[in-house]
């Protein structure tokens, strides 16, 4: 059974059909790529899946349960994490605080979070992750002061803090230099090997083809192809969508 | 039954004045994210200025009105926009809100201290003679108010929907950044909005002064009513502010007549809370979606 699945998902903005009856699923442990030319609706699909935008039609399922139009915080507790195309951090908080924030709502009750000041366990986790991501040195700096690449990695790290079952990455490589790209590919591969499920939106074809086991292609709001990297590369519809006929 | 209808007319009459202030308020909010807590004082000040030009200097009515509108446009439009709003607008809603609170106090207490704490009489613009139409009695003043406001609102609506500047204002209201990148001079349009607001409040001042008299603190109640009208009617449409103002005027008049004077405000407040709970964008407003 797919871990995360959308069926006939549609999102209309008045007369603009940003997403039109798109269906696909990601199996546990899979690394799925979501690609398509600009404006094909990829981020909108993510936003619908993660409760940021209300859907116009269709359903979203997680482990078989209908989670359509849930609040984002509910999805977090179910184990769905995501990053954003335009980096979304807490700029005036320190890097460490950003990480702690991303992990603190995971366990316990709200009242417990007020009454207990002890955060040693969470802090250790955060520090370990920061070390893994090579961000230990800047842990006490403000998130706003990081370089773009470092911010992207922090965004990624925050998605990991909640120990999620599935991680949705929206253009994690956009605008970063090749060194950072390599680092990110390394992290994603590592984590996928350990059993984490990923859905990745990317424009960088090399990254997608080498990283993903399966790819879904969108064009103008519709799904036009689905298959292994080889199948996609040789699919004439995909060529047409990207380069015209 | 005719009683109720007469009250209705009276309500529409005063409501249309509230509507003018409410429309200006909404325009400011839409184009420049300014919650103008001094909107009431934007009516009080031109009222005093009109007293100066018309009663004290005894200029002919139209000349006095023109001078008042110009003074209002300069002080409450240009000076406020360039001197205060421009400085604070990029810092978010709150510093500007506090500044307008300060401005409201400044205008109010300056008028009290430097002019007079007493209420000044203001001769009515339209005659107060009553006419009887089919058993219903209403005054020329009431008709005059409604006609004036209808004309002004109609002109404003035409301006916004038919002229290039009007389209520019709509563009800025919907998406500032985009408007700027399309080459629209956002700053100039915001200035225009402030000037328009000043003209609207000056107009409201001239209409309401005969009813409320001219006193330094009339702005408090008026500002609140403009607020209510905008929220109840619909914060993001001129039509909403207009209908909201009329509704406030009518409800207030009926409540004052059928319940008691003390509960006039309460009736409006209850509608306000109901609107906020059940249709937060206002009765005639349009829902804005999360980006």
């Amino acid at each position, binding site marked *: 059974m797919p871990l995360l699945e959308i069926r006939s998902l549609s999102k209309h903005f008045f007369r603009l059909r940003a997403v039109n009856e798109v269906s696909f699923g990601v199996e546990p442990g899979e690394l799925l790529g979501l690609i398509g030319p600009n404006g094909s609706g990829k981020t909108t699909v993510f936003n619908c899946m993660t409760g940021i935008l209300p859907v116009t039609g269709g359903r979203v399922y997680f482990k078989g349960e209908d989670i359509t139009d849930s609040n984002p915080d509910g999805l977090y507790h179910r184990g769905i994490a995501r990053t954003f195309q335009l980096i979304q951090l807490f700029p005036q908080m320190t890097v460490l605080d950003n990480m702690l924030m991303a992990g603190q709502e995971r366990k316990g009750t709200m009242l417990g*979070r007020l009454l207990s000041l002890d955060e040693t366990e969470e802090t250790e986790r955060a520090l370990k992750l920061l070390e893994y991501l090579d961000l230990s040195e800047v842990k006490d700096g403000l998130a706003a002061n990081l370089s773009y690449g470092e911010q992207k990695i922090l965004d990624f790290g925050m998605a990991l803090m909640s120990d999620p079952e599935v991680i949705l990455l929206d253009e994690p490589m956009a605008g970063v230099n090749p060194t950072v790209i390599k680092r990110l590919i390394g992290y994603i591969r590592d984590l996928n090997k350990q059993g984490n499920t990923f859905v990745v939106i990317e424009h960088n074809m090399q990254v997608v083809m080498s990283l993903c086991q399966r790819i879904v292609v969108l064009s103008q709001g519709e799904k036009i192809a689905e298959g292994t990297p080889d199948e996609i590369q040789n699919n004439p519809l995909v060529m047409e969508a990207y380069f015209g006929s | 039954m005719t009683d109720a209808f007469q009250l209705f007319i009276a309500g529409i009459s005063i409501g249309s004045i509230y509507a003018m202030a409410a429309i200006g308020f909404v325009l400011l909010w839409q184009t420049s994210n300014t919650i103008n807590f001094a909107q009431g004082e934007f009516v009080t000040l031109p009222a005093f200025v009109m007293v100066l030009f018309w009663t004290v200097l005894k200029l002919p009515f139209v000349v006095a009105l023109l001078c008042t509108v110009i003074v209002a446009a300069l002080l409450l439009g240009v000076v406020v926009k360039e001197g205060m709003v421009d400085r604070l607008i990029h810092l978010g809603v709150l510093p500007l809100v506090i500044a307008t609170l300060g401005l409201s106090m400044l205008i109010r207490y300056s008028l009290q201290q430097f002019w007079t704490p007493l209420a000044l009489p203001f001769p009515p613009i339209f005659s107060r003679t009553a006419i009887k139409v089919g058993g219903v009695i209403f005054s020329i003043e009431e008709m005059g108010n409604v006609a004036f406001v209808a004309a002004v609102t109609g002109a404003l609506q035409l301006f916004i929907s038919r002229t290039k500047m009007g389209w520019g204002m709509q563009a800025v209201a919907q998406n500032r950044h985009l408007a700027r990148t399309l080459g629209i001079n956002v700053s100039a349009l915001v200035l225009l909005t402030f000037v328009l607001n000043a003209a609207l409040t000056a107009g409201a001042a001239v209409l309401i002064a005969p009813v409320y008299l001219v006193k330094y603190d009339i702005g408090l109640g008026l500002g609140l009513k403009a607020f209510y009208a905008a929220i109840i009617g619909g914060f993001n449409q001129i039509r909403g502010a207009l209908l909201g103002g009329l509704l406030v005027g009518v409800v207030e008049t009926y409540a004052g007549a059928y319940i008691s004077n003390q509960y006039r405000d309460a009736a409006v407040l209850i509608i306000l809370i109901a609107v906020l709970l059940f249709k937060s964008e206002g009765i005639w407003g349009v829902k804005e979606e999360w980006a």
Partner: protein
Amino acid sequence: MTRRRILALLVGIAVLLLLPFGLEQYKLYLASLTLVYLMLAIGLNLTLGYAGQISLATAAMMSFGAYAVALLVPVRVPFEVALLVGALFAFLWGLALGFPALKVKHHYLAMVTLGFNLIIYLVIRNWESLTGGSFGINAIRRPAWGPLHFTSDRAYYFYILGWTVLVVASAYWILHSRWGRAFRAIRENEMRAEVVGVNLRNYKLMCFAIGSLYAGIGGALFAPLLTYIDPSAFTLDRSFQFLIMVVLGGLGRFEGPFIGAAVVTLLPEALRASEGLYLIIYSLSVILMMAFMPKGLVTFWDWMVERVSGGRPGKAKAISVEKSAAASKSK
């Protein structure tokens, strides 16, 4: 907390303890009033500065505490119980208002609280049999613990100080707990906060309700300070006054309410000499302060602290190490 901060804190407390012995009656009253306003400002700062919720209902919440004390103490209810009743009533109303109001967007909450404040004012003014209407309630008694009476101005100052310490300490706790982090996250990037599991409604609701609780406590201590209350103390203007206090002091900063309460309470007094002009100078000052120090007077405070300690406490360590090296060189 650093050694320097603890020292500063002790000095501050010492000053507050010694204050009543050096001040004559009116100035002591001002000091007590500032402490009461501080509690209200801390509450509003929580709601407004940390959770970004505009509340104009501060005066109404304050009135709950004030009238609770004024009405219950004469019928043999212990003062502290009456205070807690009033504060709890405010807390519950905070929950009741916040619950639906948080469905609506940012600025609309201001309208709900504005409407609420006005309705409460009307109710207080018209329910004469309960509240005495416009005539208010007189001869409000100050607390007493058996033989220990807090009736004198000086004694009551210490009583207020005790509650202030409680409020400040609890606010400090809240803001340094995980709730505080969640509040800051909400303020900085609400959407991202939700995506990392922050239940926006619950946290905002708590902010609003706790802010109202503090306002209730402040109101309960306010009534015996004046020994007389009437509806005119709880108008919309009063809510605006606290709004100004919090923004002027410095939104979302712990020091903000201290500065704001002190300035807003004491500035009109300092200007009193100018007679009729003082309100004008006051309002002009508000506008100018917003124009030149929009983040609040805490900016000035930060600058002073930086000068004194040669480095910015709490910011990136690298920067402060450099600055204190430079500062010690220039000395």
